């Protein structure tokens, strides 16, 4: 019974989405206001049906109802409960079901927010209509070609369980939902942009509104990508976290364009420039999420994430083409309404920094896109199978990333419109000194890789500039008699959007340093060690103590007991293992990682002797690799700081903030 019940729920949700689209577009055409209330109710009902379908699937999974096709595909009685619950998104159909749920939640949230703020008008109506149409597409997908609720008769007694790689680490419960919440959420700013284009009108409130609806999915996408690289580091056993795999690229490209958008929309808000470009970016972001989904869900590219399935591909390609074509036509048609009202005043201004930032991000996205698509194009056009090696991506991304690291600090330090050399000299003095000192210290400590040296020096410079942006205004507050901490807190709280942004920037710097140091100072060794013997690498000694096999409900494991020493003293015992799943011929390695702020020791059991007399162990030492994850967390915290609801405070405290040399109204920072 469960199967048909779930299917009916998805069909009813699809009906709601169609009705919502019709109501919104008709309401928009007649310029009416009444559509808002109706759309909202339709969005709520749609959410209820999608949630029902989702819960039905969870219920079927947890109760091991193998008459449901999807459960028979990914479930098994031996899988632990946690992995059973999250196996919902371990294969194609379930992941689209999760997709639909998140999209429906966003739709309901947008409807609520619009109703609350009393927004109405053609642009709002058309935006809603667009969002409902995106819902229609995904609900059609889940109702027909990717229907997970099909039934099997007779029902099998047991299933294979989820893909072993996906049940090896608890992070599988976090990474996909985070990533999807980011990915799917890009449909909202896209709809807001597309709707405004349809209506031919950009509300002056538009940049603020669309920015708010972009920053949340952007933050989730950021965390999703960082969590994904962490997962791949902890699970895949090759000691890396990023391989320029098509699927990683698929999540990275929309992140790049969305980040460019978040910056260019500020220029639009402040200066009325770059309207057309900003809209292009947000449309491109949505297109790239669709493209990414197409690449990963249609099986055109082979990858860990690619679930092969026949009909999904053409469906996606069709929708992708439709969105691309209609966006291009709209942009051309409405171009006149998107004229810039401001212009660039000076090369030494924040606008210029934003322009450079946008060029770099767009160039980055294009580079990755080309590298990802090239094998497909080559195979289609010339019939030759090629792959674009990681060196291409690394070569291209290093200079771009360095440019971005430079801008992370310099951009916020530049004032809008026109900066005076004197002011900049003053702002750049101490950070410059700090960077110089850091540079000398690094050389003294033997950091001789130019790239690492450059990255750290630039990061120190950027951090100095960011700190200066807080300390400058804080000094003015202190002069008025406030205590040091209170003054700093006062400055930070006076413009949370701006200073939240700086926290995000600090996180980016942590990641940049982590990536540069961990990739260029990575050391690696592999040895076949006899029982009770040890192998050495730098300050480390790895001793092989024991080997045993263990039976677990869903798998068998071969575990090596290893003691690690650093400079002669024991640092811990580790248990790298190989897991054998009954459904997979080859074992899956689970590395053992000793994590540290300074460096990680990463141990993998590569092979072993059947009698337990020797084992082949690979050890990887990556300095500062953990900074990448910390940086991701800091970025998340920055967004939370910027978005936490404002507390109502006494008038006195809400007085306009004094912000250094650049005078800025409250709430319009970056």
């Amino acid at each position, binding site marked *: 019974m469960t199967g048909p019940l779930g299917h009916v729920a998805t069909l009813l949700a699809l009906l709601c989405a169609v009705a919502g689209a019709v109501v919104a577009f008709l309401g928009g055409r007649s310029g009416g206001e009444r559509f808002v209330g109706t759309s909202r109710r339709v969005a709520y009902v749609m959410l209820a049906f999608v949630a029902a379908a989702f819960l039905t699937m969870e219920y079927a999974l947890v109760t091991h109802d193998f008459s449901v096709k999807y459960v028979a595909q990914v479930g098994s009685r031996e899988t632990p409960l946690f992995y059973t619950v999250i196996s919902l998104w371990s*294969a194609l159909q379930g992941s689209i079901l999760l997709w639909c749920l998140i999209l429906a939640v966003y739709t309901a949230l947008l409807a609520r927010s619009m109703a609350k703020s009393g927004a109405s008008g053609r642009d709002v109506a058309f935006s809603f209509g667009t969002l409902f149409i995106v819902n229609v597409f995904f609900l059609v997908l889940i109702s027909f070609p990717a229907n997970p609720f099909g039934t099997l008769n007779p029902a099998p007694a047991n*299933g*294979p369980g*989820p*893909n*072993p790689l996906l049940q090896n680490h608890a992070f599988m419960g976090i990474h996909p939902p985070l990533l999807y919440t980011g990915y799917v959420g890009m449909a909202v700013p896209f709809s807001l942009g597309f709707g405004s284009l349809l209506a031919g009108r950009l509300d002056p409130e538009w940049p603020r509104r669309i920015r708010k609806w972009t920053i949340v999915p952007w933050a989730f996408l950021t965390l999703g990508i960082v969590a994904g690289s962490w997962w791949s580091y902890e699970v895949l056993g090759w000691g890396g976290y990023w391989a320029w795999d098509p699927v990683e690229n698929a999540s990275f490209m929309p992140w790049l364009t969305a980040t460019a958008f978040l910056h260019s929309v500020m220029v639009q808000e402040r200066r009325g420039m770059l309207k057309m470009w900003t809209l292009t970016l947000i449309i491109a972001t949505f297109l790239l999420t669709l493209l990414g989904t197409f690449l990963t869900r249609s099986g055109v590219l*082979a*990858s*860990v*994430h*690619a*679930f*092969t399935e026949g009909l999904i591909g053409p469906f996606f390609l069709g929708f992708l083409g439709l969105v691309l074509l209609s966006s291009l036509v709209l942009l051309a048609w409405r171009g006149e309404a998107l004229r810039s009202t401001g212009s660039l005043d000076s090369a030494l201004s924040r606008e210029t920094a934003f322009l450079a930032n946008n*060029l770099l991000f767009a*160039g980055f996205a*294009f*580079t990755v896109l*080309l*590298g990802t698509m*090239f094998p497909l194009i080559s195979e289609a056009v010339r019939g*030759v*199978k*090629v*792959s*674009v*090696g990681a*060196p*291409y991506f690394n*070569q*291209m991304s290093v200079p771009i990333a360095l440019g971005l690291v430079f801008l992370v600090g310099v951009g916020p330090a530049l004032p809008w419109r026109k900066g005076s050399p004197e002011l900049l000299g003053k702002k750049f003095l101490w950070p410059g000194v700090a960077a110089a000192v850091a540079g000398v210290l690094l050389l003294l400590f033997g950091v001789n890789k130019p790239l690492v040296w450059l990255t750290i020096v630039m990061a120190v410079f950027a951090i100095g500039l960011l700190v200066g942006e807080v300390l400058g205004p804080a000094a003015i507050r202190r002069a008025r008699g406030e205590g040091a901490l209170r003054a700093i807190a006062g400055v930070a709280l006076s413009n949370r959007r701006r200073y939240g942004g700086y926290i995000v920037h600090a996180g980016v710097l942590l990641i940049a340093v982590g990536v540069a140091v961990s990739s260029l100072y990575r050391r690696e060794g*592999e040895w*076949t060690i006899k029982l009770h013997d040890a192998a050495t690498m730098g300050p480390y000694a790895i001793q092989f103590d024991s*080997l*045993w*096999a263990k*039976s677990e409900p869903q798998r*068998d494991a*071969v575990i090596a007991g290893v003691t690690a020493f650093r400079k002669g003293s024991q640092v811990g015992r580790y248990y790298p293992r*190989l897991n*054998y*799943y*009954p*459904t*997979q*011929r*080859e*074992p899956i*390695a689970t590395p053992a990682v000793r994590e540290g702020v300074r460096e990680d020791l990463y141990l993998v*059991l*590569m*092979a*072993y002797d*059947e*009698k*337990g007399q020797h084992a*082949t162990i690979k050890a990887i030492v990556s300095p500062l690799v953990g900074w990448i994850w910390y940086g991701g967390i800091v970025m998340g915290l920055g967004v939370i700081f910027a978005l936490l609801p404002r507390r109502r405070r006494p008038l006195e405290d809400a007085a306009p903030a004094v912000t250094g040399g650049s005078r800025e109204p409250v709430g319009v920072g970056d």
Partner: protein
Amino acid sequence: MAMSKRTTGTIFGAVVVLAVFAYLVWGGIGKNLVYFLTPSELLAKGTSAYGSNVRLGGMVDSGSVHWNADTRELRFRLKDETKSVEVISSGAPPQMFSEGIGCVVEGVFSADGVFHSHNLMVKHSNEYRAPRDGQKPAEYYRELFKQQGQ
């Protein structure tokens, strides 16, 4: 209306930036393309196959695997339907490496007719499905259970 000097300058700058960028991208891709070949395709290229970095995919020929623990060298033949190529790879084979398994090696084919691999990947299917009848998971670790008296 004539274009102002500034607009011309901006356009010129943009064109230069784009040109440099395009040059970098094409150069970067061209240099880093790795062709994917089967043994017959590799051998069909004759002498032109020597020296360039390619990926070679095929099955590990049964009875051809030799692991030399002293030199840490792994030798085997990679075959497709018709042809096979001798491969030398350094480092211990991964646990899942075995005869008859699908395998991709990245490296250079040299004039002595041997493929020198610096990266060995065992192909395991991403598509996940239940084992067919008669297909069994690798069993060599059972030996460990026996020793432990289980």
